[in-house]
């Protein structure tokens, strides 16, 4: 078992009347990219702020890289974080900003080389002496990554790190995250980009309305989901739909490409396929379509009523995931 990088147990946080986090557990190990998912207002950024000691928790304990986290304490060496769009001093250049941060990390002796390397690694070397006031959001995001790299992170907390980047920039960030994890670092990645999460993360924690609704690997998430739907093309789709309405245990709906989506238990599906043959309806194509992470996420977090939830507060509505997964 790889050593634990983040151990947050029973973390709760309340802002005035809004319960931002409620008894949240999060365990992440070194050498893994751990995804943190949830709809807007779910509490992801608050959790990252608690982990970095920016926000005091009302209950629970947090240990990162084996050290307790307390608000007001210095961040342990090897821990870096990127929350929201990174902010810097606009009247200073990228290089001056990074040199300032190196100084705050107490590493003045090697600052010049470290700053240059970080600028090079994040593709900002050409803009190193431009004042940050003239930087785009994407450049500030790159600069934020450069600032994180200066701490030689063994634990990196990233909040939407590619939200302002172009596709090439996003690809670079993904490569960097993989490289860090391969080198034994733990990366906690909060993101809305399901493809990015699916591609990068070996483990996931999904939170909704301040509560953990799933934690585990992507494969575990898939294995607990209901059976994936089939896409069916027949010689007579109308007749196939009519037959389905008389068959117990299967549900058929039209697909975008003119075929049919069929879902149900395996036994009911077998019976339905045999019935199609007996009715003289030929099966031209039958394909099992794996469920995307995005559809699993939507089932878990019931984002259809997100707008209502955001306006009423996290604790005011009971949690009703589409299917029970919390472990």
């Amino acid at each position, binding site marked *: 078992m790889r050593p634990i990088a983040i151990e947050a147990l029973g973390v709760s946080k309340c802002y005035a009347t809004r319960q931002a986090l409620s008894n949240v557990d999060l365990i992440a190990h070194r050498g893994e990219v751990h995804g943190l998912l949830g709809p807007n207002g779910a509490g992801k950024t608050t959790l990252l702020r608690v982990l970095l000691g920016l926000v005091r928790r009302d209950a629970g304990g947090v240990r990162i890289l084996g050290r307790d986290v307390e608000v007001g304490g*210095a961040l342990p060496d090897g821990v870096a974080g990127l929350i929201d769009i990174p902010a810097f001093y606009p009247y200073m250049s990228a290089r001056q900003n990074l040199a300032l941060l190196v100084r705050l990390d107490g590493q003045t002796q090697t600052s010049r080389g470290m700053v240059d390397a970080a600028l090079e690694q994040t593709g900002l070397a050409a803009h190193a002496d431009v004042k940050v006031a003239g930087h785009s959001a994407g450049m500030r995001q790159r600069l934020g990554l450069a600032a994180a790299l200066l701490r030689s992170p063994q634990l990196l907390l990233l909040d939407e790190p590619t939200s302002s980047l172009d596709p090439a920039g996003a690809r670079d960030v993904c490569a960097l995250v993989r490289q860090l994890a391969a080198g034994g670092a733990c990366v906690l990645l909060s993101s809305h980009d399901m493809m990015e999460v699916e591609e990068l993360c070996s483990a996931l924690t999904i939170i909704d309305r301040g509560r953990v609704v799933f934690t585990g690997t992507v494969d575990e998430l898939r294995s607990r989901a209901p059976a994936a739907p089939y896409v069916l093309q027949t010689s007579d789709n109308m007749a196939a739909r009519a037959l389905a309405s008389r068959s117990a245990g299967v549900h058929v709906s039209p697909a975008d490409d003119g075929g049919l989506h069929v879902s149900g238990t395996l036994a009911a599906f077998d019976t339905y396929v045999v019935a199609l043959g007996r009715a003289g309806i030929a099966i031209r194509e039958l394909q099992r379509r794996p469920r995307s992470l995005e559809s699993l996420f939507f089932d878990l977090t019931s984002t259809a009523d997100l707008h209502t939830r955001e306006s009423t507060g996290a604790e005011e509505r009971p949690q009703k995931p589409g299917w029970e997964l919390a472990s």
Partner: protein
Amino acid sequence: MRVKGLAAVAGAECAKLSAQIKTRVTLAACVVGPFAFAAAMRVQNSLPEDTLFGRAVKESGFALPLVVLGFAALWVLPALTSIVGGDVFSAEDRYGTWKTLLTRSCARSEVFAGKVAAALGFSLLALGVLAVSSIAAGLLIIGSGPLVGLSGAQLLPSYALMRVTFAWLSVLPPMFAMTAIAIVLSVATRNSAAGIGLPVVAALSMQLYALIDGPEIVRQLLITYAFGAWHGLLAEPPYHRPLVYGTVVSGIYLVLSLVLAYRLLARRDIAA
């Protein structure tokens, strides 16, 4: 709290201050202002007779820094202190950089102490520059004639220079107290306009109170009392009681303001 962390934050704050135009303009104004005033005094016929030492401003170069000091104590010195003190914390809110600053290897107490050290250091620097510039302007443009003290006794140039220097040094405690007030306003309001403007308004209000016939004990508890305590140094023999009293009062303002500011910062959630 580690000294190394405090020094790192103070150094970083100094780097930030040196990169800002406002600090350079302020220090430049401290250099140029007294020379412009001395030049104007030299060419004009009238004198600022209603100001302490105003009548002597053309006779002795040592009177000029005292006139500048008397005028500056009204609102210039509070403004000088709050330019940095009133902005040093709220600027992090304006730029959204708290999360950048507090996710490095410095504890929040070290960040606080480093910023306070930088703000007090700037107040000291601004006062020093204004004092040296005023004395130099007086001596170079007006001359080094003997100064007539508040008791009517003539002070020889070397003695006058020492008294003038002490007079400028005597406003350091209230300068620091005003800096601390600006700091607590900067932390509490998270707004630079309030952090910079309110200390000046407070200083002017205290000056106004000094003009009305209120209880003496209240007058002595105001920082403006300490700003005027240097008058005793120009008497013969000099008296120091107001100076001691003003320093103690300034110290109380300083400590209370900094304790309050730290408690506010330490309890704060950095949620934006």
